[in-house]
């Protein structure tokens, strides 16, 4: 791998007594689509702001395209496109005016970079004269991305671009990011949605200001390292969860969409557990082997962390 697009070393940021980012070290290769995945309060936004030169680290250092984010912030700013988590364009300006303004900020114009943003901006063209504040959520995100891309950045930093966006638009958004990656752009996107991990080349699972694991989504899933079962029953799901957790053979049990994800402490014994639960009054108990997902790994990692 040639020089990394992003490299951090022991990056730390504190707000008063709260350590928002606690000694994070990682690298992102050029042309990589890198996901920073973790719940609210994990330090995702803080990390993005540090990389975007909006904030200074209290300890450690970060570089973007080998430019230091503190000492060479002008160089970094020229090469980075940043999209904050909150819609930050001007709601009273029209779609076209917003785009033209951000092009002017970077001393370029819309026409010169239209090829890059065409797939994203295209559907918005019809609304060019509509105030940006009157767009739908997905449209706003597309406009914000267009504005972040208008100066052809080498590195794109996206802070929770899919939060508050409908599932169809989310999927569409990740397809757009994959396309940008295939054009050679380095993309770093943060998200609280674990199911979006598979869209990334590599992901960082983070919690409470620390990176728990940095790897490809598959490698993260493989690292789960023990058989996982899906547990469901006819009865009250919450009661089932509590009952399963009380069982001595169960290592962990977490509520997921339709079924609980359950791992055993030692050798898996699904039949024994099923009997015990049915003896406890649950009907139609079903335990089936399933593939661990990124969220299972995250749960496992935060467990160890506690």
């Amino acid at each position, binding site marked *: 791998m040639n020089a990394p697009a992003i490299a951090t070393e022991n990056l730390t940021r504190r707000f008063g007594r709260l350590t928002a980012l606690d000694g994070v070290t990682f690298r992102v290769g050029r042309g990589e689509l890198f996901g920073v995945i973790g719940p609210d309060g994990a330090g995702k936004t803080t990390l993005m702001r540090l990389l975007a030169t*909006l904030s200074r680290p209290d300890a450690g250092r970060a570089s973007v395209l080998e430019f230091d984010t503190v000492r060479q912030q002008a160089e970094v*700013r020229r090469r980075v496109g*940043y999209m904050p988590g909150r819609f930050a364009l*001007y709601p009273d*300006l029209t779609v076209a*005016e917003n785009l033209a303004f*951000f092009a002017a900020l*970077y001393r370029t114009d819309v026409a010169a970079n239209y090829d890059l943003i065409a797939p994203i901006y295209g559907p918005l063209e019809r609304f060019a004269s509509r105030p940006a504040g009157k767009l739908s959520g997905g449209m706003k995100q597309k406009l914000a991305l267009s504005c972040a891309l208008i100066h052809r950045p080498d590195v794109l930093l996206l802070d929770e671009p899919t939060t508050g966006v409908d599932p169809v638009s989310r999927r569409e958004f990740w397809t757009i990011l994959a396309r940008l990656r295939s054009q050679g752009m380095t993309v770093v996107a943060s998200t609280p949605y674990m199911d979006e991990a598979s869209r990334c080349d590599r992901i960082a699972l983070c919690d409470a200001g620390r990176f728990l694991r940095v790897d490809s989504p598959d490698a993260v899933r493989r690292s789960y390292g023990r058989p996982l079962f899906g547990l469901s029953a006819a009865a009250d799901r919450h009661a089932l969860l509590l009952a399963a957790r009380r069982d001595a053979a169960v290592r962990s049990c977490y509520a997921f969409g339709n079924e609980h994800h359950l791992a055993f402490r030692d050798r898996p014994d699904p039949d024994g557990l099923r009997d015990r639960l049915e003896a406890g009054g649950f009907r139609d108990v079903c335990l089936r082997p399933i593939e661990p997902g990124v969220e299972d790994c995250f749960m496992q990692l935060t467990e160890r962390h506690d």
Partner: protein
Amino acid sequence: MNTYLAFVRKEALHILRDRRTLLVVVLLPIVQILLFGFAISTEINDLRIRVAATDRLTDAGRIATRLDASPYLRCEALDGYYDGKNKYYDSFSYRSDRKNYRSDRIDQVLRRGEADAVLVVDGRQGRMQLVVDASNPNTATMAASYVGGALGGGAPDVRMLYNPQMLSAYNFVPGLMGLIFVIICAVLTSVAIVREKETGSLDLLLVSPVSPFVTVAAKMTPYFAVSCLNLATILALAHYVLGVPLAGRAGATVALTLLYIVLALAVGLLVSTLVRTQVAAMVLALIAMMLPTILLSGMIFPLENAPAPLQWLSAVVPARWYIGAVRKVMIEGLSLGDVTVELAVLAGMTALLLAAALKNYNKRTD
């Protein structure tokens, strides 16, 4: 330069699209000037004076005519009648049994607000007494001096320089200018910048390669332009509607005001770097600038009468220096060379505020 223009255009669009702000910006100076010019007048016209004589022999009518000649006084008999040609003043003989009736009657007239003062004339002893309703000390003082002046009671011949008619417009136009530019520049600029903080767009400006200098200059430009427009409006209204002379020093007045506008913009910028919300910006700008401008600039309350600590405090209120200088230039017709102290103080304050604001602005937003 291109970036700067795009920026200015964007700021102008913000102002033009926000109808309410636009209305405030354009109408505020006009309304204030007209309001102060016509409705809220501190001059006292039409003081109602009643004249009462103690006996029939006293020529109260002649005294009343003299008072009536003054444009500020309106004269009537205390208990008289008017036959269409002459006013007749009741002149009860000064008998002891009527004495109480008389003073009761005077009280009654003043209490009911039928008159502001009653002049009692005693021709036989050659004495006069003016009974004034002093519940409003301002009116009372004016009434006393008007009546004294009209009767020519040995007072020195007074000549009022610069403002011979004692028009309050001469006083409040400079004061209002000091106030209006603070409101428009300091309050609106700070709110405009803090709005970008609130919505997060300031972050986008900060991560762009645009220097904060350009950002700040571009933010200020439209408000500076609006202020220039306001200055023209105010001067035109003051001169043509209120009759303020400008004393042939319009150029000096404009130069002074432009400096003051930049100062107010710098205050707005500084305020915007100190707070996070638009409401806080508004409150801080109002408290930090508007109240001192109203209370401590000499605009309404003469500073000369203030306690010494307040007088010292007023030295840091820019409006005090500005209003003082504008009075000298606009009303007294002095040149800029005669207000160098004020100019130096204002320029110094501007430089200091701008430096502090830019230093603060340069810090990152977190």
